[in-house]
């Protein structure tokens, strides 16, 4: 049990750990420093999904400043809204963006399912682990599902290794079913384990689950002992501990299943030419990868960039193998949740 979950046993100890599952690091080229990337020029329109407190926008502006010959137009909005706009504009024959940087894979999947994306070229695949080399979009940074628990109340050894085993424990659970992140997690479970198993999981756990309005609320409930563990994205715990280092809270991850799903932000290429590709290469640069990890606690995905202390390194996680664009298939998940009375 200890070996599988050495990631965040102590936040400061993370850098010393060295488990590297073959799938994670395999074949990923080193991140290229920005000063070795080609200078961008010409016209480029980027649709930018709003998120992370404007940090994505800040990255885009930094790229603009670094490339004075680039005429860059940016349209911001919610990721799902921009995806819908792209699809509508395409159907209408209107102007389209050259690239779409979205905070989540499902909106990218929506655009890809409409045939609007061009295949990701090798230059953008090379810095990524093989498991994240998708045809429809290039992942930029990640976030992982986790179990947040108070070690003064719950022993790590009592946590399940597999998310499907959680109903077989007597642990109480905090969750936020209205959150997109939770729904994506459950969608991953449905795709990986099947509808019947997901229904049984929901039913098995529901009697011991307590719903919260948000995932931070669920994590705080775990810290305060209202529940034994919270199912939430990893960064809530890290943010909380950053502000309140005395908080007794740790992260644990299941192995190879939906409980350890790594969802990503990513960029889809919508037009031909080198400029959108080169723009995306900036997002894979060591500088941008480190910036997003340090400022937003996101998991670096490109170039083997080591995250700062506290942020789980990709090489130490075991997410399931899943085409993330399929996470957009949400309706059956919502139906299951409603059927189980979770929504």
């Amino acid at each position, binding site marked *: 049990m200890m070996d599988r979950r050495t990631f965040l046993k102590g936040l400061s100890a993370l850098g010393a750990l060295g488990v590297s599952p073959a799938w994670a690091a395999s074949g990923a080229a080193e991140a290229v420093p920005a000063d070795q990337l080609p200078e961008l020029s010409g016209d480029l329109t980027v649709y930018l999904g*709003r998120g992370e407190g404007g940090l994505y926008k800040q*990255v885009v502006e930094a790229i603009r400043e670094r490339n004075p010959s680039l005429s860059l137009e940016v*349209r911001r909005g*919610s990721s799902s809204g921009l995806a819908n706009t792209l699809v509508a504009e395409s159907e209408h024959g209107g102007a389209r963006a050259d690239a779409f940087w979205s905070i989540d894979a499902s909106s990218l999947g929506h655009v890809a399912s409409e045939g609007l994306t061009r295949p990701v070229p090798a230059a953008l695949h090379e810095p990524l682990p093989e498991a994240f080399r998708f045809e429809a979009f290039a992942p930029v940074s990640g976030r992982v599902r986790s179990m947040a628990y108070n070690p003064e109340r719950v022993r790590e050894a009592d946590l399940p290794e597999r998310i499907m085993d959680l109903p077989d424990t007597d642990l109480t659970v905090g969750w936020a079913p209205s959150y997109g992140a939770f729904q994506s997690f459950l969608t991953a479970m449905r795709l990986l384990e099947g509808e019947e198993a997901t229904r049984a999981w929901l039913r098995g756990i529901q009697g011991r689950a307590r719903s919260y309005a948000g995932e931070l609320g669920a994590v705080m409930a775990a810290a305060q002992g209202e529940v034994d563990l919270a199912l939430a994205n990893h960064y809530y715990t890290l943010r909380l501990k950053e502000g309140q280092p005395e908080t007794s809270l740790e992260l644990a991850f299941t192995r190879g299943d939906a409980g350890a799903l790594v969802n990503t932000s990513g960029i889809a290429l919508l037009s031909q030419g080198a400029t959108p590709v080169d723009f995306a290469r900036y997002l894979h640069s060591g500088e941008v990868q480190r910036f997003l990890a340090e400022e937003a606690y996101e998991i670096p995905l490109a170039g083997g960039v080591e995250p700062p202390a506290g942020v789980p390194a990709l090489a130490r996680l075991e997410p399931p193998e899943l085409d993330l664009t399929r996470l957009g298939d949400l309706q059956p998940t919502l139906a299951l949740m409603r059927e189980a009375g979770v929504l």
Partner: protein
Amino acid sequence: MTETGRGSTALVTAVLLGAALAPGVGLAHGEAGEHVEAFEEHLDDYESDVQALGERLDAIVERYHADGGGTTEQVDEFMAAWKEVKYHNAVEEVATPLYSPIWRAITDLRQAVESGEPAKVVEQRASALRATLYEGLGGLRLRASLDEVEPTGHDEGAAEADGSAEATLQRIREQLDEAVAAYGSGDTEQARSLIEAAYFERFEGVEGGLIEEDPELVTRLEEAFNAELPGLIIEDAPREEVEAKVASMKEALERSEALLDDAGEASSEAVF
């Protein structure tokens, strides 16, 4: 944000703010006609456009009922007409936040027709689309009324476009005002939609830094956005109760703004 835009004119301000929410991007469908420069003089034209589009929607629904189904041809014709009318460019440039919802509603209608949904569903989608068209018209009118007081400017939109927490929190407060206005006019669906958008599309983007400053404040806002305020609307609570809840949320958002301001935003860090 201008002083004019605060308080009782929040809904108007929201449209003004939205007017520049297409940050740094040109028109998606080419240059606007000259009418956009003087859009307040063309409101009647825009209304005629919306009425004509509404008639097309009526025709789509009628034919769908009559045929027991339909093709996407009529919807495609509707889209072509929507592209050509003056109203299109006016909404896109002057009331930008109301532009994407129109496209989304068109897509929803097209999908319903394409997949052969029951006529009732197609009728509902057409009705929803008609509502978004009129919302756009309302936005243009509101914007015109504000411009009588204050010249048009794009600074407000630019402020949100810069992604600052201050501008985002300001926009959230305005969306809450819009939600109260929608609730007051009986449009509970729109009210809930605005609340949801304010939380998931904006507050989630600024909560990260706030968690480090005051996690209890964030959880209170999570509760308010996702449970308490929608709960009041579902229960059809008196408008005064909804206003009181929104007032307390806006106080919490102002507290959030102060905390983030004191902490200094992460944006001071250089990327390269």
